[in-house]
């Protein structure tokens, strides 16, 4: 065994602990398989008709019923478009404010900078249970009940709290010389933000965007209480309501007899997961970093 080649990537080759290694592999594999069971069931069930669901619960059954996906899209599609609209407007505003805030706190020198910064960061410690009820009342008072703005504003106002924290750290790492030479060329603050900071902080912004998109996609309790019209509802609440009405036979176009409602319902769940899968395929690195960062925000 050559120790020199392996030191770079893996821990240096030590005296073999074969049984231990095999045992670990087995244990890890079993745990991971167990945690994948719900995902497996979700996907296989989404391709079954009533009979297949009734009699072949565990196996993949053929033919695959792609029709389920058509039926599901008719209902889930609108919720997804609503959610994407909210995400686009909310995220664009959130990214802009985080970029500006991050730049100001990282690169500008002004009285009370640290006081203002900590005033923002302190908000990370306010648990949402404390603000949930009063925030609802504030939004009602502003006439935002059942209004899409009520879904966008929390992203726009609350997103930059963690955003500024992340972007300040990120922008602090940009070399000062770049700013100096731009200043010599007579660049103003907006040029410094738009022409220098923005292109160099794209990885940070991507992490932030991914993280907040996951948040919007999963948001449940807030849209549940704020939005009454089904036409404006977000995906998580939409699926919750769909599951309830599907099992009681209340979804138009879906036959609720003989287990045939389950296929389209699970197809809807799969469709609703696709944006997150796509996000992971496109921005996998930022996805994982974003998730880990979200954990580190406390």
């Amino acid at each position, binding site marked *: 065994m050559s120790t020199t080649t392996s030191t770079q990537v893996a821990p240096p080759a030590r005296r073999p602990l074969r049984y231990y290694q095999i045992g670990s592999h087995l244990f890890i594999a079993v745990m991971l398989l167990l*945690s994948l069971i719900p995902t497996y069931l*979700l996907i296989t069930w989404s391709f079954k008709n009533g009979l297949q669901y009734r009699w072949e619960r565990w196996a993949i059954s053929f033919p695959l019923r792609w029709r389920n996906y058509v039926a599901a899209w008719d209902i889930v599609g609108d919720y997804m478009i609503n959610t994407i609209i909210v995400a686009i407007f909310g995220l664009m505003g959130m990214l802009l404010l985080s970029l500006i805030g991050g730049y100001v706190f990282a690169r*500008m020198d002004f009285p009370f900078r640290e006081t203002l910064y900590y005033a923002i960061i302190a908000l990370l410690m306010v648990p949402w249970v404390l603000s949930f009820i*009063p925030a609802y*009342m504030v939004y*009602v008072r502003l006439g935002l009940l059942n209004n899409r703005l009520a879904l966008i504003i929390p992203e726009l106002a609350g997103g930059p709290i963690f955003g500024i924290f992340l972007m300040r750290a990120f922008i602090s790492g940009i070399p000062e010389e770049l700013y100096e030479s731009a200043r010599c060329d007579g660049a103003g603050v907006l040029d410094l933000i738009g022409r220098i900071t923005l292109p160099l902080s794209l990885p940070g912004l991507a992490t932030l965007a991914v993280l907040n998109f996951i948040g919007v996609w999963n948001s449940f*309790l807030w849209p549940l209480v704020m939005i009454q019209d089904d036409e404006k509802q977000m995906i998580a609440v939409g699926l919750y309501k769909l599951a309830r009405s599907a099992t009681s036979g209340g979804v138009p176009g879906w036959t609720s007899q003989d287990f045939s409602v389950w296929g389209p319902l699970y197809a809807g769940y799969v469709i609703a997961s696709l944006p997150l899968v796509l996000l992971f395929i496109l921005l996998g690195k930022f996805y994982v970093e974003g998730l*880990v960062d979200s954990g580190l925000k*406390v």
Partner: protein
Amino acid sequence: MTEGTGAVEQGNVAETGKSVPVGSRELSTWQAMRRSWQAYALLAPIFILLLIFNYYPPILGLLRAFYRWRPGVEASFVGLQHFGVYFTSPETGRELLNMFKLLAFFFFSGAVVPFIMAVLIFRIRDTESKELYRLFLIIPMLVPLIVVILLWKQIYDPNLGVINGLLEQFGLGFLARNWLGDTATALYSIMFMGFPWVSGVGTLIYLGGLGQISESIFDACEVDGCTGLRRTLQIDLPLVLGQVRLMTILAVIAGVTSFQQILVLTDGGPGFATMVPGLTMFHKAFRTQQFGYAASIGMVLFVITFAVTLAVNRTVHPAVEEVRH
């Protein structure tokens, strides 16, 4: 904080030293502030939004906990009445007990299990399998939370559920039951959701922490014959205590405040078997319009979260810096 501001002030004074003659300190701060108008102008929209939507609501909540409050009606002061009602109502003891049970369990499933999983994956020598395991850890996270909850609801279903189906297949049909509808099993079924609790942010955070430990420490410990469980307890655990603390605090916050899965799975039932204070808060506000009462429960939960977080922060100290890197 004051130190920081002082430094900034001095910096500005030094910068603008030429134009500022010997004057009072306040005047120079004022001048430095006027000079930095651009910074304040850029921050203004952020602070306006934060003031209305992020500072005001929690403060309002703390005040309105002492009022009778509902939309469209003027709030009236009731003093400590809500707290009195809450702590003397017969369900409250049950709710708090459920909450602490969930909290203790979330510590196990959110902080302990991911640590074990991360240590095992970290010690795998084969880099390719390591990467593969990491990928498989992430796949279940690509399913939205609400779908996971709804799936588990189906898994627990008394007639169509997978668990009862499996039990019957193995001749254990007598064990089959209405998992979420039975007072004896409902709360434990909610805890069991997500089994085996390995995939998630926790394992990734621990893996990140383990990856930061200097290779020389492991080598030294290998030479001393410190392997297996001993290494886990004496080397790995102390060096990722920062991550342990983080996951513990997250588990505490989840245990005290999260009720989405309970709302969807059982809505607190059967009876009050799975009721938690957070869900009571939600019901009081949005089913019986008692917003002041709900705000007071929110305040109680805030105090509990704050106290437990503080206690965790005081007791768990991350390892000294010299050992890292």
